[in-house]
């Protein structure tokens, strides 16, 4: 069936289309070229509307053990947002830690057609994919966590052959069915198990002869040589510590030209100026970032209200547990593999610290010049739940609104940030880069995030409202693979998205030392550690899309 979306203003940065009035044609779930020639079966008159590809959240904690522990930890957060079933949709709960089905529905209702879980522990990958499998509507994928697992720490500290390290990385991506690799507090989660409470970039690990720098550089190089599109996704050292801007700057320099993605950089951009020894380091980060085209970031914007922080960073979340609100929290040491921490949190606009975190995030957005290297995230749910995105978009696009909001926050905080002096307003084109084209390009999603012929017909149509928050809260139409799934901000059809993976090559011989390792130390057999494709797709849970990787190099 050929569908024509006529007369809308199209924002498709991947194809350099900036608000031109164009017709978009869809057939067989794909975008097709206008001279396709077939008879139009269904036409939508979209004059005055804004058309973009479906949005992509490249970093959102929506599936996996720690998310479900967080869900279980916070019943009162769900009680204010219990959602009844309808003829079409399942019941569930929402707000900060939405249940899986509600996550899928609400992302779609906000015009998102993909979301990526950035912290898949290898030991917990099966559950992460089960949860993503129960998240309808959107495409998804996972970044597998490495860098505090004892196997890689052994490989690196014993200076094993680099090809072996690459094999292990590629094997783990395959076993955990991941599209990318994430490092969380490099070596720090492991160090915490040895009772170390802090691990800076060049500090030696308490047990293994290596430093976080070694881990970051090794994995950055490994992924490049494996041909994986998304560079190593780094949650750096010293999360949340005043002064951590120094280790973040040092991490950027450590990459020394190697591609690197620094995630929720807001939490890593703190200086120590002022009476309270807490100030914004955003300007320094942005300056270095502007000069280092090999580095991309996402922000992890803080917005005010109740949420729950959930991270693999057991070391830093334990340190932050004293701020838990409400007063309960979980920290776990996991399987000689990773860890996690879950600390409920309420960001208050009158708090000096929280207001400054808010300002630092916005500063980062406004100071980074290249929109292709910065992605719009709140690190859901860590900085704020994902439903706040439209509010964040308005803060970026509307200076007057931003100034009004600044009136409401702790005024002292703004003295330690350059936010009040920044006049930049994001354009719709730039927002389309931040929320579609940029993440798709960075993650290597060949056929997502754009509206060129051959792309999957994941399309969002908005009313062009001056109030950008209202505009982005409730799209008029959302198409997934060419099917209309949302109308006027409500799900009208439930579909199942795909799971995106990437599969760099590896030498199967890696399974020999791995099997021995599993048999000697683990409580799980290597054979059972690996996730099969069937486990992901059975029961009608969508398809697996293998995104291309470049050839492996040395």
């Amino acid at each position, binding site marked *: 069936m050929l569908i024509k979306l006529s007369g809308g203003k199209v924002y498709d940065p991947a194809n350099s289309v900036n608000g031109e009035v164009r017709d978009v044609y869809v057939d067989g779930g794909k975008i097709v070229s206008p001279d396709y020639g077939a008879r139009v079966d269904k036409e939508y008159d979209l004059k005055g509307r804004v058309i973009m590809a479906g949005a992509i959240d490249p970093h959102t904690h929506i*599936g996996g*053990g720690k*998310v*479900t*522990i967080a*869900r*279980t*930890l*916070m*019943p009162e957060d*769900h009680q204010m947002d*219990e*959602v*009844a*079933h309808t003829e079409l949709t*399942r*019941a*569930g*709960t929402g707000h900060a*830690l*939405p*249940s*899986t*089905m509600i996550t899928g529905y609400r992302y779609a209702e906000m015009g998102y057609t993909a979301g990526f879980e950035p912290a898949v*522990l290898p*030991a*917990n990958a*099966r*559950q992460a994919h*089960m*949860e993503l499998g*129960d998240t309808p509507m959107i495409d998804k994928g996972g970044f597998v966590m490495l860098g505090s697992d*004892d196997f890689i720490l052994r490989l690196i500290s014993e200076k094993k052959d680099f090809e072996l390290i690459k094999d292990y990385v590629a094997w783990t991506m395959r076993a955990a069915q991941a599209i990318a690799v994430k490092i969380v507090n490099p070596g720090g989660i492991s160090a*915490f*198990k*040895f*009772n170390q409470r802090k691990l800076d970039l060049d500090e030696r690990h308490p047990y293994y002869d290596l430093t976080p720098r070694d881990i970051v550089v090794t994995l950055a190089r490994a992924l490049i040589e494996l041909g994986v599109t998304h560079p190593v996704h780094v949650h750096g050292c010293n999360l949340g510590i005043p002064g951590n801007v120094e280790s973040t700057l040092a991490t950027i320099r450590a990459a020394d030209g190697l591609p690197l993605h620094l995630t929720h950089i807001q939490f890593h951009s703190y200086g120590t100026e002022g009476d309270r020894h807490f100030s914004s380091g955003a300007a320094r980060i942005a300056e270095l970032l502007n000069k280092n085209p090999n580095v991309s970031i996402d922000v992890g914007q803080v917005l005010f209200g109740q949420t729950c922080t959930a991270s693999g960073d057991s070391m830093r979340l*334990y340190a932050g547990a004293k701020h838990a609100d409400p*007063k*309960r*929290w*979980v*920290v*776990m*040491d*996991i*399987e*000689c*593999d990773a860890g996690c921490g879950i600390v409920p949190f309420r960001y208050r606009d009158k708090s000096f610290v929280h207001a400054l975190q808010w300002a630092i995030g916005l500063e980062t957005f406004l100071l980074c010049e290249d929109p292709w290297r910065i992605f719009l995230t709140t690190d859901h749910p860590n900085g704020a739940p994902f439903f706040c995105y439209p509010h964040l978009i308005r803060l970026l696009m509307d200076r007057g609104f931003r100034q009004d909001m600044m009136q409401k926050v702790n005024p002292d905080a703004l003295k330690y940030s350059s936010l009040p002096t920044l006049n930049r307003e994001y354009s719709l084109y730039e927002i389309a880069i931040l929320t579609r084209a940029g993440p798709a390009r960075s993650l290597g999603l060949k056929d997502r995030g754009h509206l060129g012929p051959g792309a999957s017909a994941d399309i969002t149509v908005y009313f062009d409202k001056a109030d950008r928050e209202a505009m982005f809260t409730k799209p008029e139409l959302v198409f997934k693979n060419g099917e209309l799934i949302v109308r006027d901000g409500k799900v009208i059809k439930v579909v199942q998205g795909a799971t995106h993976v990437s599969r760099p090559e590896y030498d199967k011989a890696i399974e020999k030392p791995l099997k021995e390792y599993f048999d*000697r*130390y*683990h*409580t*799980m*057999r290597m*054979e*059972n550690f690996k996730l*099969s494709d069937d*486990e992901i797709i059975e*029961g009608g849970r969508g398809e697996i899309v293998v995104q291309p990787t470049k050839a492996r190099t040395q």
Partner: protein
Amino acid sequence: MTARDEGAGLGERPTSELYENVTCPFCGLLCDDLEISRTGSTLKVLKNGCGRAHGGFERTLHDAQPMVKGKAVELSQAIEAAAGLIKKAQLPLFGGIATDVDGVRAALSIADRSCGVIDHALSEGQFRNLKVLQSNGWIMSTLTEARNRADLFIIVGTDAHKLHGRFFERIVCTPESMFEDMSSKRTVVFIGEGLDTSAAMGPRIDEVITLPCKLDKVGEVLAALRARLRGTDLKALEPANDATGMVSGSKRTGFLSNLLPKQRTAKTPSSPRTQTIDGVSLADIDALAERCKNARYGVMVWAPPGLNFPNADLTVQIISDVVKNLNVTTRFAGLSLGGNDGVVSGAAVGGWQTGYPLRVSYATGKPEYDSYRYSIGRMLAEKEGDLLLWIATFSPDIVPPETNLPTIVLGTPGLKLKKTPDVFIPVGTPGMDHAGILVRCDNVVSLPLKNLNRAPLPRAADVLAALEAAL
């Protein structure tokens, strides 16, 4: 229903087969290194099974057919009859839920669609943990982490060996650990009398210490430990302002009077040498406190079903407190065992699909959670609900509570039912008759269960889906 539901393909199964790396679904440890052979419909555990595993895999396969009111019928007729009962029900109760992840998914789906209540047969034990999670949280470890890292295991009031036949073998007394230079020797402390300590032996074990107290008093001993760790001089405390700190720790004031042991209040404590807390001398508690502080990585182990006494969640609470206290200076973590019959999977899938670890009612269309109100055991006792659908696919002992309500049972053949249900549908055991997934007791690792081709029994998940489709 799909071909698989009818066990199609089984006709072509080889008469005998050998299976390696088999996951055992018969307790929450989910050991996945078993070797099992099948001849016809008879399974034999060849390697790595404990007694419970042998009992589970090798149990007699009873003949079983779908039944309506005790009469054998076709599966489709049983489904039709069951769907009829669900359609009539105003508040159907979905209990048991002793099934795999897909079974829980399907049970949640039909409970949602039919506005019912859903709870697991073993929730009572699990909520001893969940209440603590939902009020204070905790610091926890997992099986592999504990296996490699712990230099001190404290087993709290739980007969771990009896409940989990391979716990000591696989986690505590392992031939190797990843950090031999740091935790080559382990001390094992048992708190509670009559616990089987026999498995804590071998070259890895340094000392085995028992602090004998009545099992329902382990909380008191731990509370004294907590007090000592916090530097409280127990001698100076009045019984009313109890050393256990349970008054302040508990919101349930009435509870203290139940727990305060009469003989202790009668005793006049003298010196730490002679003062005892429920039979354990204060000196021993002090020695344990020292051991804890000096441990590099201590692990406090319990199984929620082991703490089978009133208000046992307060004991879990104290475990959580003690562990948190110790982490100020060293590393310590809890490790909860238990998790049999899919109870952890139930809470996990419930958690991700509804936000709540079961004990959820969909009566209003929305998931509503109440760990007291939506206990199906309580509801049946108080004559709430008007239909019981019970799922028990693993142990034949997971039987429905007594009730006069119309009852549908999706059960493993040989389920020890006390009464003929209105509809009985025999279903397969995940990990024997079909493949599946279960979440392990540590709530992190989930393991694939293999289809060992034992019997052509349908999956509970598929029967539930067929039932839902028939509504």
